[in-house]
């Protein structure tokens, strides 16, 4: 085997120019592939971060309460008891919080905008304070101080509100300013309250434009809700990959505890109003979702990027495979005499086949490895530089203000393996032809 390997390497080195061009093409495609995977991976990271910071746990126990048939209040009554059940029965749980939800108009002297309200109990949200980077005042006020003003812990006070830099800029707000929050129920009933901006956080993609944090007490008073009512109990796991399984498990647990559950509907909660409104049940139903359900309305971007990548890489792979096949075909023709000699001195057909396959495999492996190293280096470099994305529409698609690229080692290894295998596959036909040659005609072959 090692003899065959060294023959293969020798042949590659001998046909330097050909090897170089093929390897160059392969490496380049590998770099492209890794860049594309990096974009997709970076977007997934952004998605997970946006979702799990702003609006969702890894698993959510939310629900709807219907006082009348045409109602759909996105609330969970009986909060304490359900939360205790969840805390005690979730395998691999990291921590559990619960947040109230609302939809509001944020009114400031300079303008107003709509946003989702999240009511938090900041005493149990230490991780939120870490995940939200506060913005320096100069980032949202022209001529503002170059220092962070305000503190997320200001949400301890009932009238505290945490907004995002984009919103602050738009509404001309700085920490300490008063805002009026006007909530509107699905039925068009309204209520308003005065709040105070206690902190301004950096934007997390466009989703943060639609998000404002207030104290849970403040939100409950806007909606006249009881203390034992919340919006969603958010469960964070040690391993986010376990989310679907944990959701299944919790469904069973809650059902056993006598709670009525809604059928799993993988959509964000505000897309379910229409169905809930028309449904025939009354009272409380719980609705369990995982993080990806709550951002299902933007995962199409991910699908789009992935399908573009897939198509592009697919086309490139076909072109490369044709190139390898052509090149090996030439190699076989050039070396017909050599093959004939080898066969004549007793080399088996199988070993001839393996010899040519090895040549392609070695080429594929070396080239893709080099490409992988280059690609990973490139995306790590770009990621570390943290370019600002200039275009608003691209920012919206990437869900971030900065270009974030990330790729997992396992993906890279898989790609190297797949490409190497593919190189081998495209060599099968020329190698097979070589192995089928009759020694006598092969030796006699000229050119």
């Amino acid at each position, binding site marked *: 085997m090692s003899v065959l390997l060294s023959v293969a390497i020798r042949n590659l080195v001998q046909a330097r120019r050909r090897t170089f061009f093929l390897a160059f093409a392969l490496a380049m495609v590998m770099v492209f592939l890794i860049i594309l995977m990096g974009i997709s991976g970076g977007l997934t990271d952004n998605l997970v971060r946006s979702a799990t910071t702003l609006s969702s746990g890894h698993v959510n126990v939310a629900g709807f309460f219907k006082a009348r048939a045409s109602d759909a209040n996105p609330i969970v009554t009986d909060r304490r008891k359900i939360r205790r059940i969840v805390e005690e029965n979730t395998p691999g749980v990291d921590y559990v919080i619960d947040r109230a939800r609302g939809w509001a108009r944020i009114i400031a002297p300079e303008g107003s*905008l709509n946003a989702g309200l999240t009511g938090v109990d900041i005493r149990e949200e230490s991780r939120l304070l870490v995940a939200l980077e506060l913005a320096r005042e100069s980032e949202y006020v022209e001529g503002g101080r170059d220092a962070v003003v305000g503190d997320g812990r200001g949400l301890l006070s009932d009238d505290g509100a945490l907004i995002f830099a*984009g919103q602050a800029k738009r509404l001309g707000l700085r920490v300490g300013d008063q805002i009026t929050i006007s909530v509107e129920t699905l*039925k068009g009933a309204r209520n308003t309250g005065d709040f105070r901006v206690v902190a301004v956080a950096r934007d997390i993609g466009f989703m943060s434009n639609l998000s404002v944090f207030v104290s849970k007490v403040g939100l409950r008073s806007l909606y006249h809700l009881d203390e034992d009512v919340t919006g969603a109990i958010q469960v964070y796991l040690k391993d986010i990959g376990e989310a679907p399984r944990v959701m299944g498990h919790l469904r069973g647990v809650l059902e056993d505890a006598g709670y009525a559950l809604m059928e799993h509907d993988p959509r964000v909660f505000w897309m379910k109003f229409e169905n809930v409104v028309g449904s025939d049940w009354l009272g409380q139903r719980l609705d369990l979702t995982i993080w990806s359900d709550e951002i299902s309305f933007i995962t199409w971007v991910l699908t789009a990027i992935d399908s573009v990548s897939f198509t592009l890489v697919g086309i490139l792979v076909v072109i490369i495979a044709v190139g390898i096949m052509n090149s090996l075909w030439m190699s076989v023709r050039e070396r017909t005499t050599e093959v004939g000699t080898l066969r004549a001195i007793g080399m088996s057909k199988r070993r001839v086949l393996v010899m040519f396959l090895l040549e392609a495999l070695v080429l594929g492996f070396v080239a893709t490895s080099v490409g992988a190293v280059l690609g990973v280096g490139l995306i790590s470099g770009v990621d570390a530089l943290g370019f600002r994305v200039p*275009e608003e529409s691209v920012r919206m698609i990437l869900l971030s203000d900065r270009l974030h690229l990330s790729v997992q080692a396992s993906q890279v290894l898989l790609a190297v393996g797949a490409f190497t295998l593919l190189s081998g596959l495209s060599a099968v036909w020329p190698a097979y032809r070589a192995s089928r040659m009759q020694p006598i005609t092969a030796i006699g072959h000229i050119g």
Partner: protein
Amino acid sequence: MSRMGLLLTLAVRNLWSHRVKTMVVGTILAFGTFLVVIGTALIDSIEDAMEESVTQSVSGQFQVYSSEGRDELALFGGGFMGTDDIGRIDRFERVRETLSAVDNVEAVVPMGLDIASLTAPGELEGALELLRDAVRKGDGQSYGPLSAQVREIIDQMRVERENTERISRNGNLSTLQEELALLRRGLSQELWQEFEVDPLSVLEFLDTKVAALAEEGRLLYFRYLGTDLDLYRKHFDRLEIVEGTFVPPRSRGFLFNERFYEQLVKHRVAVYFDRIDEARREEGKTISQSADLQARVRRLKKQYRRITHQLDPVEHARLEAELKKRHPEVEGGLVALLQAFLDLDDETFEERYRFFYDVITPMIRLYAFRPGDTLTIRAYTRSGFLKAVNIELYGVFRFRGLEKSRLATAFCLTDILTFRELYGLMTEERKAELYDIKREVGLADVAREDAEEALFGGANGLVETVQAAGGFDEFARLEEVTARELRDGARFVQSEVDQGLALNAAIVLEDPARRTETRHAITRALRSAGLPLKVVDWKGAAGMVGQLVIVIRGVLYVGILIIFIVAMVIINNSMVMAIIERTTEIGTMRAIGAQRRIVLEMFLLETLVLGVVAGVVGALLATGLVSWWGASGLPAPSRQLIFLFGGPRLFPDFGPGHVVAGFIVIGVVSVVSTLYPARLATRVEPVVAMREKE
């Protein structure tokens, strides 16, 4: 010439003798051409479809808006939910004067865009309306069933209140208990005995005390465009009325777009039926195969209440009998029968669809609003207060040829005075001015009562101005003036439209082909008039939607570029190998006197010939496919992309430009990828031909 002929013969011969290489390179080139032609044709078709949708429905060839706002114009919404700050045009008349003078400008249409909401009427309201009609007509026979319906709804309200008690904090309980007391009175025997004697006083009680407790119906959000309707209709001439009428000249009024009307104003069960029907007919889906449709059917089954709630006892009995005939095996009453009926499958769908529309829809309110109804439209003013306006719904519109376009169906329409009112940006000075104008024209006295009666059914013109915290009392002062003005009726004079505020304006050109020069002329005219306005084309006006096309085009070009770079490397490689094989032949040619140039030309010509043949094959395949799609329609890959396609299917088209682009690209690629191998070939010395073959 003969040299050319010779070279050509040589090229063809060489291509033939190296068939494998020719096949490999040729396939890659043909595929490249195919990709370029198809890619550019598709993206151009997408852009054309979008351009048509946007320019013909709202933007015109250009949009102008203030350069002083913080945001860029985004006709379909910006990155924030809420109103973008695109500045404003305070005196539209100046813009019109300036721009109408520019050559090739056909019209300047004032516009204002915003989001507003509308509440579909509640059930109790509807039921009381029917009962009041019956009392007015003295139709004693219907009292029984109708009052039973009213009682049932009130009983539901009682149950709701009792449910709400469970989730409400203590502070609210006293109000709840008061409300419960009223509801219990509404259900009491005494009250309904009194009804027999004095129906009007009981109705009065129900109307004022009990109906006030009923929560309103469904909240519908929509984007609307306030404009000079008469001018708009004249210059956006694809607009057609599907139902009702257009708003009469110089009148206030509202128009729904057809999609909003069919998908949000329509009865939910009907919308479910329509959606399944559409998926089956147009997308070729079946319930048994499509998980999406199965989920819809499951949800539809739970929506039976939307039907039962709208039936009076007579209809209830009739529908129950009808359904019993269809589903004799079902045990139980109407609810069970309806559930069985709504459990759709592929075999029975069409028949049940017909039954639904023939038998059930006449009994229910198919649309929450009909032309002729008065709408109460609510919107947030610039400063964030909720403002409401009552306005008559005249009709439902669509754009000819753009019925399926998501972009052309993004707006409802109203007059610009209503927009100004909802937007809350009329200054007092401006209003006083308008008043003077009106008095001069003498319109204020015209049929004041009549107009009021016709529009608002005697109610006040202005419904409410919700005010939150203090400190914004400019609105308190405005309210009185506004109310007075609205009561002056639904009619106005043209100068009111012209002399006031607009957020942006559409410029419609006489000859769109001359748009580039006209754009320059417009910019010049604005500058010399000292108007701080920006001019943008449809793409610039469409915000994110417009930019998306640019992004897609960018992705396509980068993709094609990458593919060609790799293809060039591979072609280059194949050629190099071919030349190494042909070293002896080249040496011989050189030895018998061929110049290096001849060798170079021979190789270049060889790839060019191959490029042309491959290009023709690729272009033929691509144009064939595009034509086929153009006839049968290319379905949108996902529902989110329908807006890009101008409908569920794109009908792409290609022009000579796409084929030419394909050939140019392929020509460049063939030549570039041959340069290095051909140079290698020219370096072959004649002496190699003398050597023994390896």
